């Protein structure tokens, strides 16, 4: 049975990848992911904003209270250099590359144009096989138009593409006025893959402390529907590969998104919940299902139930919403 798939120009042993998550913070865990059968790994994201914040914070704490009191003109020894840039992350890429044979994809969340390109270049130099741009952004400015927002995405992509030679994937949120149009624009601008979709921290209210507590809930199978739809809709219409992420927990989930047209499935919540060995179980399940249903390869089933190739193409479209409602009435 051939489980091979192609993603970002790389041939992968199976379509089961580990997506960006805390699991990749430790090289030993990355090794375990490989051993469990992950075909590639996306490292946790480097957040430019966090680096910036940490620098400002460090500066604040190193200056707080200084030059005020004659006996204590400073409170900390100041080394002649700090490691405040992305060095730690870059070292992590290097170590991960040394530790495993599977492709290592670096993930970046920038805030400034300079940051996006500078860190992207450094990640390539550190040995990343590809980049995933994690454009993690919730626009709240009422005066910011959707055109401006979309342009920002395109600008980030083109500026990064202009400085690196490795493939570049974009991890997107689903919140665009027209996801299809956005996907096309990114495709035209040279995106090598779209990772659908990013899940954000959502605010919650703690009734004990009466405070807002943003946190991330682990996904469930139900989350899968959204990527499933858009992968199916976009399959065959854009050149870029598609990776499904968010809600892939069971064998069936993986098969569904692959049939919708995803090149790979990215796993996170299920690994956090069940441990990295889950990958092996999923792979065995996929094999068993394919065997039972007499599929020879992933290639064969990929996109088979995309909008383009399915029996009822309109089923993926918005009209379906009305039908759902009607079915409730009935």
């Amino acid at each position, binding site marked *: 049975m051939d489980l091979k798939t192609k993603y970002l120009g790389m041939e992968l042993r199976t379509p089961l990848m580990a997506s960006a998550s805390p699991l990749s913070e430790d090289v030993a865990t990355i090794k375990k992911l490989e051993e469990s059968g992950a075909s590639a790994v996306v490292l946790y994201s480097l957040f430019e904003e966090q*680096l*910036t914040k*940490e*620098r*400002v*914070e*460090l*500066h*604040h*704490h*190193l*200056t*707080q*209270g*200084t*030059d*005020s*009191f*004659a*006996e*204590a*003109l*400073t*409170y*900390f*020894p*100041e*080394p*002649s*250099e*700090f*490691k*405040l*840039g992305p*060095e*730690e992350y870059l070292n992590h890429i290097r170590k991960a590359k040394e530790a495993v044979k599977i492709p290592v994809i670096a993930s970046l969340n920038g805030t400034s144009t300079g940051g996006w390109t500078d860190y992207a270049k450094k990640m390539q130099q550190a040995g990343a096989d590809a980049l995933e741009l994690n454009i993690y952004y919730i626009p709240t400015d009422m005066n910011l138009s959707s055109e401006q927002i979309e342009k920002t995405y395109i600008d980030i992509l083109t500026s990064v593409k202009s400085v690196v030679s490795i493939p570049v994937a974009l991890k997107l949120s689903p919140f665009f006025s027209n996801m299809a149009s956005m996907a096309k624009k990114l495709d035209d601008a040279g995106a090598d893959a779209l990772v659908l979709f990013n899940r954000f921290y959502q605010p919650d209210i703690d009734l004990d402390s*009466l*405070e807002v507590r943003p946190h991330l809930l682990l996904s469930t199978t139900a989350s899968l529907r959204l990527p499933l739809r858009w992968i199916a809709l976009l399959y065959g219409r854009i050149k870029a590969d598609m990776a499904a992420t968010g809600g892939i927990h069971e064998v069936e989930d993986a098969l569904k998104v692959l049939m919708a047209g995803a090149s790979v499935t990215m796993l996170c919540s299920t690994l956090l919940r069940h441990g990295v060995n889950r990958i092996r179980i999923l792979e065995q399940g996929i094999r068993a299902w394919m065997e039972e249903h007499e599929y020879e390869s992933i290639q064969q089933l990929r996109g088979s139930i995309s909008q383009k190739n399915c029996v009822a193409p309109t089923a993926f479209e918005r009209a379906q919403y009305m039908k759902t409602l009607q079915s409730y009435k009935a």
Partner: protein
Amino acid sequence: MSPQFKTIDANEAVASVSYRLSEVIAIYPITPSSPMGEWADAWASENKPNIWGTVPLVAEMQSEGGAAGAVHGALQAGVLSTTYTASQGLLLMIPNMYKIAGELTPTVFHVAARSLAAQALSIFGDHSDVMATRGTGFALLCSASVQETTDFALISQMATLKSRIPFLHFFDGFRTSHEVAKMQPLSDADLRALIDDALIQQHRDRGLTPDKPVLRGTAQNPDVYFQARETVNKFYDACPDITQQAMDAFAKQTGRAYKLFDYHGSADAERVIVLMGSGAEAAHETVDYLVEKGEKVGIVKVRLYRPFDIKRFMESLPATVKTLAILDRTKEPGAGGEPLYLDCVSALREGREKGWGKLKTDPRLIGGRYGLSSKEVTPAMIKGIFDEMKKDAPKNHFTIGITDDVTQTSLPYDPSFSVEPDSMFRALFYGLGSDGTVGANKNSIKIIGENTDNFAQGYFVYDSKKAGAITISHLRFGPKPIHSTYLITNAHFVGCHQAMFLRRYDVLRYIMPGGTFLLNSLFGPEEVWSHLPRFVQEQIIKKKLKFYSIDAYKVAQEAGMGRRINTVMQTCFFAISGVLPKNDAIEAIKESIRKTYGKKGEEIVKMNLQAVDTTLAQLHEIKVPAKAESTIDMLPPVSEEAPAFVKEVLGKMAEGQGDDLKVSQLPVDGTYPTGTTKWEKRNLALEIPVWDPAVCIQCGKCSFVCPHAVVRIKMYDPKLLASAPATFKSRDPMDRDMKGMKYTIQISAEDCTGCGVCVDVCPAKNKSETRLKAINMQPFTPTMRQEERDNWNFFLKIPDFDRKQLKLTGIRQQQLQVPLFEFSSACGGCGETPYIKLMSQLFGDRAVVANATGCSSIYGGNLPTTPWTQNTEGRGPAWSNSLFEDNAEFGLGMRLAINKQKEFASELLKKVSGTVGDTLVQEILNARQKDESDIFEQRKRVAALKEKLKNAGTADAKRLLSLSDMLVKKSVWILGGDGWAYDIGFGGLDHVLASGFDVNVLVLDTEVYSNTGGQMSKSTPRGAVAKFAAGGKPARKKDLGLIAMSYGNVYVGRVAMGAKDEHTLKTFIEAEAYEGPSIIIAYSHCIAHGINMTTGLKDQKAAVESGQWILYRYNPDRLKTGENPLQLDSAAPKIPLEQYLMMENRFKMLTKSKPEDAKRLQKEAQQDVYERWAFYEHLAATTKPAETKAPETKPA
């Protein structure tokens, strides 16, 4: 070799040379020498080698005594070793210094000379400490300027290696140690050229090694000790020549020539002053001026004070000298004269007898004291001395620089006399510690010093208050070397970086007519003038000043720099002062920003560059009107209602005019009244907490945690509200015990620092707007100031709640006790002071406090005003500070004294029972004194006793009368930080705990030496970055509580009020009640942790929840009931340690400097947590072992 210049202070200059010439460095922090050790440690942690290519080993010791011992050992084992110290630290080294000298061991100790604690501690400079080492056998070499310190650091090393006499190289604390000046550093090549490896080899050959065993340090008997002591004479005889040869070789290498006694002045001088240290620089400048005016004067700068070379001294004096004045920067009460004076007297006698020197006749000699504790030494004073020397009968044993109206020692002088040349530019800057003024000025000096041919000098005067500290920067620039070692009193430029200073200090007192005045003001160019106090307006007009203003906060805030206006004000200074062409200056600032902040990341550089770019558009020259019409007045330094002493003496100090106080105005023995901070309303807060009675749940936490005791609670008779001010708030109490009364939380707004800890801790939330609590920060407006002042004054008049009625089991009622520690000068958000305040509330009216030197002795006892105070009956803590190292013993002494007096009083009481009645005697002797009511009753009995004794007339009755107050239980408190308890004072603390006496020890554990700037102590936890642990502390925190528990009869409590406040309260009460030694170890968050000081209590909570700080009580009394004395009061670790560590820069910064080490240490620290918890859980779980029989002795 072309001269390369650097602009640094003497501490760095000395450290740079001595570090490169050492192999082992033993250090211990003490102001003002600490930075030398800090530099050495920082360089070692970065693997910077010495001139022989190896990195010196730097070891922090537990005290200066320890440092000296380690140096002694290192020297004996054949390496080059050094140490740095000052003041009491040097005194602790004396025993070893005798040994080191007695064994003819080459070494150099570098000393930033500082006053010794006598009637008071002082951190400032004079030669009292160095003079106390005269007998040790060390050579004493004095440098007078930053350049000389670097030069003499090398010369002393050269001389010690050759002569085998150990050297003490000293320079004036602060005035030289902290002066930033342009100087020529010594290169490695200079050092290599002048240090003779053969001499080092000889030193090594004398080192102890089992391969060539010898024995050194014998005990000698009367037969030989004396002769053996005389064996060293020839080495001392040779030492001056060797030192001069070193100076000559040094001159050949560097072009800078020195003599053991450097004469400067007219060749035919008739009046010559002899002195050493930085004062010699001011005298040098004065002599130049006077000689040019035709006066026949000169000075002798003493370089090598010991061994005193009489011949060279005689040869340094011109033949024409008629009068010599010898100045000492020290005081030896009761001596025939101060040391240098006495040396000169005997030298002249002996020198003249031997016919040395050129003197034609015996000159007249006078001696005087000057400059104690960094008292200014100015050309005006030097001129005053020269003038005195002209007199037929000049005053001997004089003082200069003060007014001694008691013993009339002081000489008059004309303070307006100035010798500063027009070519020298002088600028003064008034700033807040937190606004970055000093940093900006240090940077400006570097820019000018390193980008132009000008010489530059910066000296910085700091506040002794930690919150809202004012800084005054004194900057000089000019084409000639600067000898002006005194503060600026004739400034071309004055920058006032905080408009509020204009009402508090006479900021324009020292600006020259026609000078430039720059003000940072929130008001725009049109309004700023009308917001100046009238006094300031008048000075601007009268002195014809050019006046500029800028809203620097606006510029800084827009650039993302918050309240740090350093770069903005620096840009303004360069733009309008004309010290450099404007564009060159701006470019230089930018370059310096890139250099300084580059390592901290692009953002920091960017925000500073942005500030530079936007500053000039906001800088305005203000048109000065012809008339001053402001109605704004200067504020009095202390309240008009304050007692006379506070107004006339402490108020002067607060105003910055303490130099004008006369000797007669000061107490003779260092005794001051308590309760004086309340008179100095500092109005520091920009925002103050405002109580919302409707939301309040009356838990009392806000008041409990307030570091400055400004949040107060009272419950009272509602009738009192009849005369309340309109905005005074109250509501019904929630406490059922207090039904029918009224409840008020009142803020002393004018004493508040605005730290916000009270708001952070408040657990009540506004139901409609959850961002609001029951206490909220609001901008402190002038209207509020007036209202809150009235409210506070009204609140003070409400009677305090009857202490006897309070249930002390909860904070709610306990917080009605009046704090007897208020409005200290501690940092905003301080983590120590709430514990001290709690102690003062609970036991203050019968407490005696021994306070170890450190933060708590500074915010608790630094003049002008002090926070320990009294209740309405005039009772309150009696406080004293002895030293850093002896505090436990000091406190025990107090306990012994109280016990003895009580015992004696009891004995006398029995003797006078006939007079006072046996019932009263028995009642007093058998009184239970466990709680407030008991104490109250006993006080009543003692009052009755006194009444009866008053007229008794017998000797015993009189004796008892003076001792009878000791029959009321007293509480002895021994306070100090971890530097004291874990390190320098541990030996004494251990002994006191073991003694069994009833003392209460409160360790304010900040886990570093906070007062001296965050050096590692043995309390520092693993992985924390501290000074002397730049690479993160590699070892575990010492478990002081466990050590104390091991005695079995010591009450031990470990508390963190941010984690469990009522546990803290309970522990304090139990510890005090325990009739034996008790120790409370209190987690005290600190500015040195690199935390947000508003939310410090959250750090405490996280420390406990992570298991880093276990809460417990070990009460030996529980053994009596068969219980385990140890109770764990916190739960098993429930959050990962990392979560707590990453809240604090002390841990987090290691991940940014040494990420690998940080990871490893964090892992180890987490392991510590697990192991510690398991261990304590085990200790607390075990029950008292069943009594076992002693094994029977069986017949053999």
